[in-house]
Protein backbone atom coordinates (compact mmCIF):
# COMPACT_ATOMS: atom_id res chain seq x y z
CA UNK A 1 0.00 0.00 0.00
CA UNK A 2 1.34 3.37 -1.02
CA UNK A 3 1.54 5.62 2.00
CA UNK A 4 3.44 8.62 0.70
CA UNK A 5 0.33 10.77 1.09
CA UNK A 6 -0.06 9.86 4.74
CA UNK A 7 3.62 10.53 5.34
CA UNK A 8 3.27 13.91 3.66
CA UNK A 9 0.24 14.71 5.76
CA UNK A 10 2.00 13.71 8.96
CA UNK A 11 4.98 15.85 8.04
CA UNK A 12 2.61 18.76 7.49
CA UNK A 13 1.07 18.15 10.92
CA UNK A 14 4.48 17.99 12.56
CA UNK A 15 5.37 21.33 11.02
CA UNK A 16 2.19 22.80 12.47
CA UNK A 17 2.93 21.41 15.92
CA UNK A 18 6.44 22.84 15.66
CA UNK A 19 4.94 26.20 14.79
CA UNK A 20 2.75 26.10 17.90
CA UNK A 21 5.75 25.11 20.05
CA UNK A 22 7.69 27.99 18.54
CA UNK A 23 4.81 30.32 19.38
CA UNK A 24 4.76 29.07 22.97
CA UNK A 25 8.48 29.73 23.26
CA UNK A 26 8.09 33.15 21.70
CA UNK A 27 5.27 34.03 24.07
CA UNK A 28 7.32 32.96 27.07
CA UNK A 29 10.33 34.97 25.94
CA UNK A 30 8.17 38.03 25.23
CA UNK A 31 6.51 37.72 28.62
CA UNK A 32 9.83 37.49 30.47
CA UNK A 33 11.31 40.34 28.45
CA UNK A 34 8.25 42.45 29.20
CA UNK A 35 8.61 41.55 32.84
CA UNK A 36 12.23 42.72 32.86
CA UNK A 37 11.44 45.98 31.08
CA UNK A 38 8.42 46.56 33.25
CA UNK A 39 10.16 46.07 36.57
CA UNK A 40 13.42 47.64 35.38
CA UNK A 41 15.46 44.65 36.52
CA UNK A 42 17.84 42.37 34.67
CA UNK A 43 16.95 38.84 33.67
CA UNK A 44 18.78 37.04 36.49
CA UNK A 45 17.21 39.09 39.27
CA UNK A 46 13.74 38.71 37.76
CA UNK A 47 14.13 34.95 37.46
CA UNK A 48 15.56 34.83 40.96
CA UNK A 49 12.57 36.73 42.33
CA UNK A 50 10.14 34.58 40.37
CA UNK A 51 11.55 31.29 41.59
CA UNK A 52 12.22 32.19 45.18
CA UNK A 53 10.09 35.10 46.18
CA UNK A 54 11.16 35.37 49.81
CA UNK A 55 14.54 33.74 49.33
CA UNK A 56 17.74 35.14 50.76
CA UNK A 57 19.37 37.89 48.77
CA UNK A 58 16.08 38.98 47.24
CA UNK A 59 15.43 42.66 47.59
CA UNK A 60 12.05 43.12 49.29
CA UNK A 61 11.13 46.17 47.25
CA UNK A 62 12.17 44.55 43.95
CA UNK A 63 10.24 41.45 44.88
CA UNK A 64 7.21 43.51 45.71
CA UNK A 65 7.44 45.40 42.42
CA UNK A 66 7.66 42.19 40.45
CA UNK A 67 4.95 40.30 42.31
CA UNK A 68 2.49 43.10 42.92
CA UNK A 69 2.94 45.40 39.93
CA UNK A 70 4.72 43.83 37.01
CA UNK A 71 3.55 40.25 37.16
CA UNK A 72 -0.18 41.04 37.37
CA UNK A 73 0.30 43.36 34.43
CA UNK A 74 2.06 40.70 32.36
CA UNK A 75 -0.50 38.08 33.34
CA UNK A 76 -3.29 40.49 32.36
CA UNK A 77 -1.77 40.97 28.94
CA UNK A 78 -1.22 37.22 28.53
CA UNK A 79 -4.74 36.24 29.56
CA UNK A 80 -6.49 39.06 27.70
CA UNK A 81 -4.49 38.26 24.55
CA UNK A 82 -5.29 34.57 24.83
CA UNK A 83 -8.98 35.24 25.44
CA UNK A 84 -9.45 37.81 22.69
CA UNK A 85 -7.35 35.87 20.17
CA UNK A 86 -9.37 32.69 20.72
CA UNK A 87 -12.70 34.55 20.67
CA UNK A 88 -11.76 36.19 17.37
CA UNK A 89 -10.69 32.91 15.76
CA UNK A 90 -13.88 31.03 16.59
CA UNK A 91 -16.17 33.97 15.85
CA UNK A 92 -14.68 34.35 12.38
CA UNK A 93 -15.53 30.70 11.82
CA UNK A 94 -19.08 30.56 13.16
CA UNK A 95 -19.99 33.91 11.61
CA UNK A 96 -18.30 32.89 8.37
CA UNK A 97 -16.85 36.36 8.20
CA UNK A 98 -13.23 37.45 8.37
CA UNK A 99 -14.35 40.55 10.24
CA UNK A 100 -15.94 38.57 13.05
CA UNK A 101 -14.57 39.59 16.41
CA UNK A 102 -15.95 40.63 19.80
CA UNK A 103 -15.37 44.22 18.76
CA UNK A 104 -17.20 44.06 15.43
CA UNK A 105 -20.16 42.24 16.95
CA UNK A 106 -20.72 45.16 19.29
CA UNK A 107 -19.96 43.13 22.41
CA UNK A 108 -17.05 45.35 23.43
CA UNK A 109 -19.10 48.51 23.00
CA UNK A 110 -21.97 46.99 24.94
CA UNK A 111 -19.58 46.24 27.77
CA UNK A 112 -18.27 49.81 27.69
CA UNK A 113 -21.84 51.08 27.78
CA UNK A 114 -22.56 48.84 30.76
CA UNK A 115 -19.45 50.12 32.51
CA UNK A 116 -20.50 53.72 31.85
CA UNK A 117 -23.89 53.04 33.37
CA UNK A 118 -22.16 51.42 36.33
CA UNK A 119 -19.93 54.46 36.78
CA UNK A 120 -22.48 57.26 36.49
CA UNK A 121 -25.83 55.74 37.39
CA UNK A 122 -25.05 52.97 39.83
CA UNK A 123 -22.44 54.96 41.71
CA UNK A 124 -19.72 52.54 40.77
CA UNK A 125 -16.99 55.07 41.09
CA UNK A 126 -15.79 58.53 40.39
CA UNK A 127 -12.49 60.02 39.55
CA UNK A 128 -10.11 61.20 42.26
CA UNK A 129 -6.87 63.09 41.93
CA UNK A 130 -5.94 65.87 39.59
CA UNK A 131 -5.32 64.09 36.37
CA UNK A 132 -7.22 61.42 34.57
CA UNK A 133 -4.10 59.29 34.74
CA UNK A 134 -5.35 57.92 38.00
CA UNK A 135 -8.91 56.85 38.39
CA UNK A 136 -10.32 55.39 41.53
CA UNK A 137 -13.32 53.26 40.88
CA UNK A 138 -14.85 52.88 44.32
CA UNK A 139 -16.66 49.68 43.67
CA UNK A 140 -15.11 47.93 40.71
CA UNK A 141 -17.50 45.02 40.94
CA UNK A 142 -20.55 47.15 40.19
CA UNK A 143 -18.86 48.50 37.07
CA UNK A 144 -17.68 45.05 36.07
CA UNK A 145 -21.02 43.41 36.71
CA UNK A 146 -22.79 46.08 34.73
CA UNK A 147 -20.32 45.77 31.85
CA UNK A 148 -20.74 42.02 31.86
CA UNK A 149 -24.54 42.19 31.97
CA UNK A 150 -24.72 44.56 29.02
CA UNK A 151 -22.34 42.57 26.88
CA UNK A 152 -24.46 39.50 27.55
CA UNK A 153 -27.56 41.50 26.60
CA UNK A 154 -25.88 42.39 23.29
CA UNK A 155 -25.06 38.73 22.69
CA UNK A 156 -28.62 37.72 23.53
CA UNK A 157 -29.99 40.29 21.07
CA UNK A 158 -27.76 38.93 18.32
CA UNK A 159 -28.72 35.34 19.05
CA UNK A 160 -32.43 36.14 19.22
CA UNK A 161 -32.12 37.97 15.90
CA UNK A 162 -30.54 34.87 14.42
CA UNK A 163 -33.16 32.56 15.90
CA UNK A 164 -36.19 34.63 14.98
CA UNK A 165 -35.24 36.03 11.61
CA UNK A 166 -32.97 33.14 10.64
CA UNK A 167 -30.51 35.62 9.17
CA UNK A 168 -27.37 34.19 7.64
CA UNK A 169 -24.24 34.21 9.78
CA UNK A 170 -22.76 36.73 7.38
CA UNK A 171 -25.57 39.14 8.21
CA UNK A 172 -24.91 38.82 11.91
CA UNK A 173 -21.87 41.04 11.54
CA UNK A 174 -24.12 43.74 10.10
CA UNK A 175 -26.38 43.37 13.12
CA UNK A 176 -23.25 43.78 15.22
CA UNK A 177 -22.41 47.04 13.47
CA UNK A 178 -25.92 48.31 14.20
CA UNK A 179 -25.66 47.28 17.86
CA UNK A 180 -22.23 48.83 18.11
CA UNK A 181 -23.49 52.20 16.96
CA UNK A 182 -26.48 52.08 19.31
CA UNK A 183 -24.24 51.40 22.29
CA UNK A 184 -21.66 54.00 21.40
CA UNK A 185 -24.49 56.53 21.02
CA UNK A 186 -25.57 55.48 24.51
CA UNK A 187 -22.06 56.09 25.83
CA UNK A 188 -21.92 59.50 24.17
CA UNK A 189 -25.26 60.40 25.69
CA UNK A 190 -24.09 59.46 29.18
CA UNK A 191 -20.90 61.44 28.65
CA UNK A 192 -22.88 64.43 27.48
CA UNK A 193 -25.38 64.43 30.32
CA UNK A 194 -23.11 63.87 33.30
CA UNK A 195 -20.37 66.03 34.78
CA UNK A 196 -16.79 66.11 33.63
CA UNK A 197 -15.65 63.79 36.40
CA UNK A 198 -17.98 61.10 35.22
CA UNK A 199 -16.97 61.91 31.69
CA UNK A 200 -13.28 61.42 32.28
CA UNK A 201 -13.92 58.28 34.30
CA UNK A 202 -15.91 56.79 31.43
CA UNK A 203 -13.34 57.84 28.87
CA UNK A 204 -10.52 56.45 30.95
CA UNK A 205 -12.39 53.23 31.52
CA UNK A 206 -12.86 52.78 27.80
CA UNK A 207 -9.13 52.79 27.14
CA UNK A 208 -8.04 49.26 27.67
CA UNK A 209 -5.32 49.06 30.25
CA UNK A 210 -3.36 46.20 31.68
CA UNK A 211 -2.85 47.87 35.03
CA UNK A 212 -6.37 47.43 36.31
CA UNK A 213 -6.71 43.80 37.26
CA UNK A 214 -5.79 42.28 40.62
CA UNK A 215 -4.68 38.73 41.33
CA UNK A 216 -8.22 37.68 42.35
CA UNK A 217 -9.68 39.09 39.17
CA UNK A 218 -6.95 37.44 37.14
CA UNK A 219 -7.75 34.06 38.60
CA UNK A 220 -11.40 34.54 37.65
CA UNK A 221 -10.35 35.40 34.10
CA UNK A 222 -8.04 32.38 34.07
CA UNK A 223 -10.85 30.01 35.06
CA UNK A 224 -13.15 31.37 32.35
CA UNK A 225 -10.31 31.20 29.82
CA UNK A 226 -9.61 27.57 30.63
CA UNK A 227 -13.26 26.53 30.37
CA UNK A 228 -13.91 28.33 27.10
CA UNK A 229 -10.52 27.34 25.70
CA UNK A 230 -11.28 23.68 26.35
CA UNK A 231 -14.69 24.00 24.72
CA UNK A 232 -13.20 25.69 21.66
CA UNK A 233 -10.45 23.09 21.33
CA UNK A 234 -12.89 20.22 21.83
CA UNK A 235 -14.94 21.53 18.91
CA UNK A 236 -11.97 22.28 16.64
CA UNK A 237 -13.05 19.69 14.06
CA UNK A 238 -16.62 20.94 14.17
CA UNK A 239 -15.28 24.36 13.23
CA UNK A 240 -13.33 22.83 10.37
CA UNK A 241 -16.53 21.14 9.21
CA UNK A 242 -18.49 24.40 9.55
CA UNK A 243 -15.95 26.11 7.31
CA UNK A 244 -17.09 23.89 4.45
CA UNK A 245 -20.68 25.06 4.96
CA UNK A 246 -23.55 24.42 7.34
CA UNK A 247 -24.98 21.58 5.27
CA UNK A 248 -21.66 19.76 5.12
CA UNK A 249 -21.21 20.15 8.87
CA UNK A 250 -24.75 18.91 9.53
CA UNK A 251 -24.20 15.86 7.33
CA UNK A 252 -21.05 15.10 9.34
CA UNK A 253 -23.16 14.95 12.50
CA UNK A 254 -22.37 18.44 13.82
CA UNK A 255 -25.23 20.13 15.62
CA UNK A 256 -24.80 23.34 13.67
CA UNK A 257 -27.14 25.69 15.54
CA UNK A 258 -26.09 24.50 18.96
CA UNK A 259 -22.38 24.82 18.15
CA UNK A 260 -22.84 28.26 16.63
CA UNK A 261 -24.83 29.65 19.54
CA UNK A 262 -22.74 28.09 22.32
CA UNK A 263 -19.57 29.30 20.64
CA UNK A 264 -20.92 32.84 20.37
CA UNK A 265 -22.07 32.82 23.99
CA UNK A 266 -18.74 31.55 25.28
CA UNK A 267 -16.74 33.93 23.10
CA UNK A 268 -18.92 36.78 24.37
CA UNK A 269 -18.49 35.56 27.93
CA UNK A 270 -14.73 35.49 27.78
CA UNK A 271 -14.64 38.86 25.99
CA UNK A 272 -16.94 40.55 28.43
CA UNK A 273 -14.93 39.28 31.38
CA UNK A 274 -11.78 40.73 29.84
CA UNK A 275 -13.43 44.00 28.83
CA UNK A 276 -15.07 44.34 32.22
CA UNK A 277 -11.77 44.19 34.06
CA UNK A 278 -9.44 45.78 31.52
CA UNK A 279 -11.48 48.01 29.23
CA UNK A 280 -11.77 47.87 25.44
CA UNK A 281 -8.76 46.44 23.66
CA UNK A 282 -9.49 46.61 19.96
CA UNK A 283 -8.11 44.56 17.08
CA UNK A 284 -6.55 41.66 19.01
CA UNK A 285 -9.41 39.37 17.99
CA UNK A 286 -8.84 40.32 14.36
CA UNK A 287 -5.06 40.58 14.23
CA UNK A 288 -4.19 37.40 16.12
CA UNK A 289 -6.13 34.97 13.92
CA UNK A 290 -5.32 36.78 10.68
CA UNK A 291 -1.58 36.70 11.28
CA UNK A 292 -1.62 33.06 12.36
CA UNK A 293 -3.74 32.11 9.34
CA UNK A 294 -0.79 33.11 7.14
CA UNK A 295 1.17 30.26 8.69
CA UNK A 296 -1.31 27.49 9.46
CA UNK A 297 -4.25 28.20 7.14
CA UNK A 298 -7.76 27.72 8.45
CA UNK A 299 -7.24 24.47 10.32
CA UNK A 300 -8.70 25.18 13.73
CA UNK A 301 -6.58 22.52 15.41
CA UNK A 302 -3.69 24.95 15.04
CA UNK A 303 -5.48 28.21 14.36
CA UNK A 304 -7.11 28.41 17.81
CA UNK A 305 -3.98 27.87 19.94
CA UNK A 306 -1.92 29.93 17.49
CA UNK A 307 -4.36 32.86 17.72
CA UNK A 308 -4.33 32.68 21.50
CA UNK A 309 -0.55 32.91 21.62
CA UNK A 310 -0.35 35.55 18.90
CA UNK A 311 -2.93 37.65 20.74
CA UNK A 312 -0.86 37.40 23.90
CA UNK A 313 2.34 38.39 22.11
CA UNK A 314 0.76 41.41 20.42
CA UNK A 315 -0.75 42.59 23.67
CA UNK A 316 2.48 42.13 25.63
CA UNK A 317 4.45 44.11 23.07
CA UNK A 318 1.77 46.81 22.78
CA UNK A 319 1.65 47.21 26.54
CA UNK A 320 5.43 47.48 26.70
CA UNK A 321 5.40 50.15 24.00
CA UNK A 322 2.62 52.02 25.78
CA UNK A 323 4.57 52.04 29.01
CA UNK A 324 7.86 53.15 27.64
CA UNK A 325 7.30 55.27 24.57
CA UNK A 326 6.40 58.42 26.48
CA UNK A 327 6.93 59.87 29.94
CA UNK A 328 3.45 58.76 30.88
CA UNK A 329 1.71 55.44 30.28
CA UNK A 330 -0.36 55.28 27.12
CA UNK A 331 -3.29 52.87 27.52
CA UNK A 332 -2.73 49.69 25.57
CA UNK A 333 -6.10 50.01 23.79
CA UNK A 334 -4.79 53.05 21.96
CA UNK A 335 -1.56 51.28 21.02
CA UNK A 336 -3.30 48.18 19.66
CA UNK A 337 -5.56 50.34 17.53
CA UNK A 338 -2.61 52.36 16.23
CA UNK A 339 -0.58 49.23 15.50
CA UNK A 340 -3.51 47.10 14.48
CA UNK A 341 -5.10 49.41 11.92
CA UNK A 342 -2.09 49.76 9.60
CA UNK A 343 -1.03 46.16 10.11
CA UNK A 344 -4.50 45.00 9.19
CA UNK A 345 -4.52 47.13 6.06
CA UNK A 346 -1.14 45.69 5.12
CA UNK A 347 -2.45 42.15 5.57
CA UNK A 348 -5.44 42.93 3.36
CA UNK A 349 -3.24 44.32 0.58
CA UNK A 350 -0.87 41.38 0.80
CA UNK A 351 -3.77 38.94 0.76
CA UNK A 352 -5.11 40.63 -2.34
CA UNK A 353 -1.74 40.37 -4.10
CA UNK A 354 -1.46 36.70 -3.21
CA UNK A 355 -4.95 36.06 -4.51
CA UNK A 356 -4.04 37.70 -7.80
CA UNK A 357 -0.99 35.49 -8.16
CA UNK A 358 -3.17 32.44 -7.42
CA UNK A 359 -5.73 33.39 -10.04
CA UNK A 360 -3.04 33.95 -12.65
CA UNK A 361 -1.45 30.61 -11.84
CA UNK A 362 -4.81 28.92 -12.07
CA UNK A 363 -5.51 30.50 -15.44
CA UNK A 364 -2.12 29.35 -16.72
CA UNK A 365 -2.79 25.80 -15.61
CA UNK A 366 -6.07 25.97 -17.49
CA UNK A 367 -8.00 24.77 -14.47
CA UNK A 368 -11.77 25.12 -14.50
CA UNK A 369 -12.36 28.27 -12.52
CA UNK A 370 -14.90 28.35 -9.76
Amino acid at each position, binding site marked *: *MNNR*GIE*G*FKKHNHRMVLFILFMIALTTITAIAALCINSDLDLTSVLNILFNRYGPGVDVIDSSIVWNLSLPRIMSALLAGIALGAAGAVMQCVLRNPLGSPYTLGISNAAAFGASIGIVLLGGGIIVGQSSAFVQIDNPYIVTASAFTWSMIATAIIIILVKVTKVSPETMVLAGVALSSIFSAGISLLQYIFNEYALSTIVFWQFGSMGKATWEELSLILVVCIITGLYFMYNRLDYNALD*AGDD*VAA*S*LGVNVNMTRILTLVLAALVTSIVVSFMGIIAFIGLLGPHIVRRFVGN*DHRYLIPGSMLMGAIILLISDCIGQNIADFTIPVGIITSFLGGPLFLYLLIRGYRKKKV*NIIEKLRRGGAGE
Partner: protein
Amino acid sequence: MSLLEVSGLNFSYDDKKVLEDICFEAERNQIISILGPNGVGKTTLLKCICRMHEASTGSVIVEGDDISRISSRELARRIAYVPQKTYATQTTVFDSVLIGRKPHIDWTMSERDMQIAWNVMESLGLGDIAMKYVTEISGGEFQKVQIARAITQEPSLLILDEPSNNLDIANQHITMRMVEHVVREHGLCTIMTMHDINLATYYSDRFMFIKDGRIKAYGGTEVITPETIKDVYGIDVDVIDYNGQPIVIPRKDQPQYAHMVRHGVGGHHHV
Protein backbone atom coordinates in the same frame (compact mmCIF):
# COMPACT_ATOMS: atom_id res chain seq x y z
CA MET B 1 -35.46 -5.03 3.45
CA SER B 2 -34.66 -2.05 1.30
CA LEU B 3 -31.78 0.24 2.15
CA LEU B 4 -34.05 3.27 2.09
CA GLU B 5 -37.80 3.39 2.52
CA VAL B 6 -39.56 6.71 2.25
CA SER B 7 -43.28 6.59 2.91
CA GLY B 8 -46.00 9.19 3.10
CA LEU B 9 -43.50 12.03 3.34
CA ASN B 10 -45.01 15.51 3.53
CA PHE B 11 -43.13 18.72 4.08
CA SER B 12 -44.55 22.20 4.46
CA TYR B 13 -42.81 25.51 4.88
CA ASP B 14 -44.87 28.44 6.18
CA ASP B 15 -48.13 26.60 5.39
CA LYS B 16 -46.95 26.08 1.84
CA LYS B 17 -46.81 22.45 0.85
CA VAL B 18 -43.41 21.71 -0.66
CA LEU B 19 -43.54 17.93 -0.75
CA GLU B 20 -46.68 15.81 -0.87
CA ASP B 21 -47.01 12.13 -0.15
CA ILE B 22 -43.57 11.04 -1.33
CA CYS B 23 -43.20 7.25 -1.29
CA PHE B 24 -40.33 5.28 -2.77
CA GLU B 25 -37.71 2.68 -2.01
CA ALA B 26 -34.07 2.44 -2.93
CA GLU B 27 -31.64 -0.47 -2.89
CA ARG B 28 -27.91 -0.86 -2.66
CA ASN B 29 -25.97 -0.60 -5.93
CA GLN B 30 -28.51 1.83 -7.33
CA ILE B 31 -27.97 5.29 -8.75
CA ILE B 32 -31.16 7.29 -8.63
CA SER B 33 -31.58 10.61 -10.42
CA ILE B 34 -34.22 13.05 -9.28
CA LEU B 35 -35.37 15.20 -12.17
CA GLY B 36 -37.71 18.14 -12.43
CA PRO B 37 -37.85 21.89 -12.94
CA ASN B 38 -36.33 24.28 -10.44
CA GLY B 39 -38.24 24.94 -7.27
CA VAL B 40 -40.30 21.73 -7.23
CA GLY B 41 -38.74 20.47 -4.02
CA LYS B 42 -35.88 18.29 -5.24
CA THR B 43 -33.33 19.68 -2.80
CA THR B 44 -35.96 19.73 -0.06
CA LEU B 45 -36.55 16.01 -0.59
CA LEU B 46 -32.81 15.33 -0.29
CA LYS B 47 -32.67 17.38 2.90
CA CYS B 48 -35.64 15.54 4.36
CA ILE B 49 -33.88 12.24 3.72
CA CYS B 50 -30.81 13.41 5.65
CA ARG B 51 -32.93 15.03 8.37
CA MET B 52 -31.73 18.55 7.68
CA HIS B 53 -35.41 19.34 7.23
CA GLU B 54 -37.83 17.61 9.51
CA ALA B 55 -40.70 16.10 7.56
CA SER B 56 -44.18 17.20 8.68
CA THR B 57 -45.53 13.67 8.39
CA GLY B 58 -44.29 10.39 7.02
CA SER B 59 -41.16 8.42 7.66
CA VAL B 60 -37.69 7.89 6.28
CA ILE B 61 -36.24 4.51 7.16
CA VAL B 62 -32.56 3.79 6.54
CA GLU B 63 -31.24 0.26 7.07
CA GLY B 64 -34.31 -0.55 9.12
CA ASP B 65 -34.17 2.46 11.45
CA ASP B 66 -36.37 5.51 11.35
CA ILE B 67 -34.01 8.48 11.01
CA SER B 68 -35.94 10.46 13.61
CA ARG B 69 -34.91 7.91 16.22
CA ILE B 70 -31.15 7.74 15.70
CA SER B 71 -28.45 10.16 16.85
CA SER B 72 -26.95 12.67 14.43
CA ARG B 73 -23.65 10.82 14.71
CA GLU B 74 -25.23 7.50 13.78
CA LEU B 75 -27.12 9.20 10.97
CA ALA B 76 -23.86 10.67 9.67
CA ARG B 77 -22.37 7.18 9.53
CA ARG B 78 -25.20 6.01 7.30
CA ILE B 79 -25.94 9.01 5.09
CA ALA B 80 -23.45 11.39 3.50
CA TYR B 81 -24.64 14.54 1.79
CA VAL B 82 -22.84 16.73 -0.70
CA PRO B 83 -24.74 20.00 -0.96
CA GLN B 84 -24.82 22.24 -3.99
CA LYS B 85 -23.10 25.07 -2.19
CA THR B 86 -19.91 24.40 -0.30
CA TYR B 87 -17.18 26.79 0.68
CA ALA B 88 -13.51 26.53 -0.17
CA THR B 89 -11.40 27.28 2.86
CA GLN B 90 -7.72 27.44 3.55
CA THR B 91 -7.22 23.84 4.61
CA THR B 92 -5.38 21.12 2.74
CA VAL B 93 -7.21 18.69 0.48
CA PHE B 94 -6.15 15.92 2.85
CA ASP B 95 -7.73 17.68 5.82
CA SER B 96 -10.89 18.41 3.86
CA VAL B 97 -11.30 14.76 2.98
CA LEU B 98 -10.20 13.47 6.38
CA ILE B 99 -12.92 15.52 8.13
CA GLY B 100 -15.30 12.94 6.64
CA ARG B 101 -14.15 10.64 9.46
CA LYS B 102 -15.77 13.01 11.96
CA PRO B 103 -18.78 10.77 12.73
CA HIS B 104 -16.42 7.87 13.45
CA ILE B 105 -13.98 9.50 15.83
CA ASP B 106 -14.03 10.90 19.33
CA TRP B 107 -11.02 13.06 20.11
CA THR B 108 -8.45 12.52 17.40
CA MET B 109 -7.89 10.91 14.01
CA SER B 110 -6.19 7.51 14.05
CA GLU B 111 -3.81 5.95 11.54
CA ARG B 112 -6.75 3.96 10.17
CA ASP B 113 -8.79 7.11 9.54
CA MET B 114 -5.89 8.61 7.60
CA GLN B 115 -5.51 5.39 5.62
CA ILE B 116 -9.19 5.37 4.66
CA ALA B 117 -9.07 9.03 3.59
CA TRP B 118 -5.87 8.45 1.61
CA ASN B 119 -7.25 5.39 -0.18
CA VAL B 120 -10.29 7.38 -1.26
CA MET B 121 -8.10 10.25 -2.46
CA GLU B 122 -5.89 7.93 -4.46
CA SER B 123 -8.78 6.13 -6.08
CA LEU B 124 -10.27 9.47 -7.16
CA GLY B 125 -6.94 10.81 -8.42
CA LEU B 126 -6.52 13.41 -5.71
CA GLY B 127 -3.22 12.00 -4.45
CA ASP B 128 -1.03 14.54 -6.19
CA ILE B 129 -2.85 17.56 -4.81
CA ALA B 130 -3.39 16.15 -1.30
CA MET B 131 -1.22 18.78 0.36
CA LYS B 132 -2.56 21.74 -1.62
CA TYR B 133 -4.97 24.19 -0.08
CA VAL B 134 -8.55 23.72 -1.23
CA THR B 135 -8.59 27.38 -2.26
CA GLU B 136 -5.85 26.68 -4.80
CA ILE B 137 -7.45 23.84 -6.78
CA SER B 138 -9.75 23.93 -9.80
CA GLY B 139 -13.52 23.62 -9.79
CA GLY B 140 -13.48 20.03 -11.01
CA GLU B 141 -10.96 19.03 -8.36
CA PHE B 142 -13.00 20.83 -5.72
CA GLN B 143 -16.08 18.81 -6.61
CA LYS B 144 -14.01 15.63 -6.35
CA VAL B 145 -12.87 16.68 -2.88
CA GLN B 146 -16.50 17.06 -1.82
CA ILE B 147 -17.37 13.60 -3.04
CA ALA B 148 -14.18 12.15 -1.56
CA ARG B 149 -15.13 13.52 1.85
CA ALA B 150 -18.58 11.98 1.59
CA ILE B 151 -17.11 8.59 0.66
CA THR B 152 -14.61 8.81 3.52
CA GLN B 153 -17.67 8.99 5.76
CA GLU B 154 -18.29 5.35 4.71
CA PRO B 155 -22.03 5.80 4.35
CA SER B 156 -24.47 3.34 2.84
CA LEU B 157 -26.44 6.15 1.24
CA LEU B 158 -24.73 8.91 -0.71
CA ILE B 159 -26.81 11.99 -1.47
CA LEU B 160 -25.60 14.49 -4.06
CA ASP B 161 -27.27 17.76 -4.87
CA GLU B 162 -26.49 18.72 -8.48
CA PRO B 163 -23.07 17.05 -8.57
CA SER B 164 -22.50 18.16 -12.15
CA ASN B 165 -23.41 21.78 -11.57
CA ASN B 166 -20.89 24.39 -12.75
CA LEU B 167 -18.65 21.77 -14.34
CA ASP B 168 -17.57 21.62 -17.96
CA ILE B 169 -18.61 18.60 -20.01
CA ALA B 170 -15.36 16.71 -19.37
CA ASN B 171 -15.51 17.23 -15.63
CA GLN B 172 -19.22 16.35 -15.59
CA HIS B 173 -18.44 12.96 -17.01
CA ILE B 174 -15.34 12.46 -14.88
CA THR B 175 -17.38 13.22 -11.77
CA MET B 176 -20.24 10.96 -12.77
CA ARG B 177 -17.88 8.11 -13.67
CA MET B 178 -16.37 8.52 -10.25
CA VAL B 179 -19.75 8.30 -8.57
CA GLU B 180 -20.61 5.23 -10.62
CA HIS B 181 -17.30 3.61 -9.72
CA VAL B 182 -17.76 4.32 -6.01
CA VAL B 183 -21.32 2.98 -5.96
CA ARG B 184 -20.30 -0.25 -7.64
CA GLU B 185 -17.16 -0.71 -5.56
CA HIS B 186 -18.66 -0.03 -2.15
CA GLY B 187 -22.19 -1.25 -2.85
CA LEU B 188 -23.70 2.12 -1.98
CA CYS B 189 -26.90 3.69 -3.05
CA THR B 190 -26.72 7.17 -4.54
CA ILE B 191 -29.57 9.61 -4.85
CA MET B 192 -28.81 12.77 -6.76
CA THR B 193 -30.65 15.69 -8.27
CA MET B 194 -29.88 16.42 -11.92
CA HIS B 195 -30.75 19.03 -14.48
CA ASP B 196 -29.29 17.33 -17.51
CA ILE B 197 -31.59 14.43 -18.35
CA ASN B 198 -29.14 12.94 -20.83
CA LEU B 199 -26.33 12.97 -18.32
CA ALA B 200 -28.71 11.29 -15.89
CA THR B 201 -29.66 8.54 -18.32
CA TYR B 202 -25.98 7.83 -18.96
CA TYR B 203 -25.21 7.06 -15.36
CA SER B 204 -28.40 6.27 -13.43
CA ASP B 205 -30.44 3.11 -12.96
CA ARG B 206 -33.60 4.76 -11.73
CA PHE B 207 -35.29 8.05 -12.51
CA MET B 208 -37.69 10.02 -10.40
CA PHE B 209 -39.61 12.89 -11.98
CA ILE B 210 -40.97 15.42 -9.53
CA LYS B 211 -43.40 18.22 -10.18
CA ASP B 212 -45.11 20.46 -7.65
CA GLY B 213 -43.84 18.37 -4.76
CA ARG B 214 -45.23 15.09 -6.08
CA ILE B 215 -43.60 12.13 -7.77
CA LYS B 216 -44.85 12.00 -11.36
CA ALA B 217 -42.90 8.95 -12.42
CA TYR B 218 -40.37 6.60 -10.84
CA GLY B 219 -38.67 3.70 -12.54
CA GLY B 220 -36.04 2.62 -15.03
CA THR B 221 -35.41 4.07 -18.50
CA GLU B 222 -38.98 3.16 -19.47
CA VAL B 223 -40.26 6.24 -17.58
CA ILE B 224 -38.31 8.59 -19.86
CA THR B 225 -41.03 9.30 -22.37
CA PRO B 226 -42.09 12.44 -24.25
CA GLU B 227 -45.35 12.36 -22.26
CA THR B 228 -43.63 12.39 -18.85
CA ILE B 229 -41.28 15.17 -19.89
CA LYS B 230 -44.13 17.18 -21.36
CA ASP B 231 -46.03 16.72 -18.11
CA VAL B 232 -43.10 17.66 -15.86
CA TYR B 233 -41.25 20.33 -17.84
CA GLY B 234 -44.07 21.47 -20.15
CA ILE B 235 -42.10 21.13 -23.40
CA ASP B 236 -42.29 18.81 -26.37
CA VAL B 237 -39.33 16.50 -26.84
CA ASP B 238 -38.30 13.55 -28.92
CA VAL B 239 -36.84 10.56 -27.16
CA ILE B 240 -34.58 8.58 -29.43
CA ASP B 241 -32.79 5.34 -28.82
CA TYR B 242 -29.00 5.44 -28.91
CA ASN B 243 -27.50 1.99 -28.33
CA GLY B 244 -30.32 1.07 -25.99
CA GLN B 245 -30.12 4.34 -24.14
CA PRO B 246 -32.78 7.02 -24.38
CA ILE B 247 -31.62 10.44 -25.53
CA VAL B 248 -33.90 13.39 -24.96
CA ILE B 249 -33.93 16.08 -27.66
CA PRO B 250 -36.17 19.11 -27.20
CA ARG B 251 -38.10 20.20 -30.27
CA LYS B 252 -37.23 23.63 -31.52
CA ASP B 253 -40.53 24.62 -33.13
CA GLN B 254 -42.78 24.50 -30.11
CA PRO B 255 -45.79 26.80 -30.13
CA GLN B 256 -45.48 27.42 -26.38
CA TYR B 257 -41.91 28.72 -26.75
CA ALA B 258 -43.12 31.97 -28.23
CA HIS B 259 -45.42 32.39 -25.24
CA MET B 260 -42.66 31.48 -22.79
CA VAL B 261 -40.20 33.89 -24.32
CA ARG B 262 -42.74 36.64 -24.00
CA HIS B 263 -44.04 35.85 -20.51
CA GLY B 264 -41.37 33.79 -18.82
CA VAL B 265 -41.65 30.21 -17.71
CA GLY B 266 -43.99 30.48 -14.77
CA GLY B 267 -41.35 31.43 -12.22
CA HIS B 268 -38.86 28.77 -13.29
CA HIS B 269 -35.39 29.80 -14.26
CA HIS B 270 -34.65 26.95 -16.61
CA VAL B 271 -36.68 24.89 -19.00
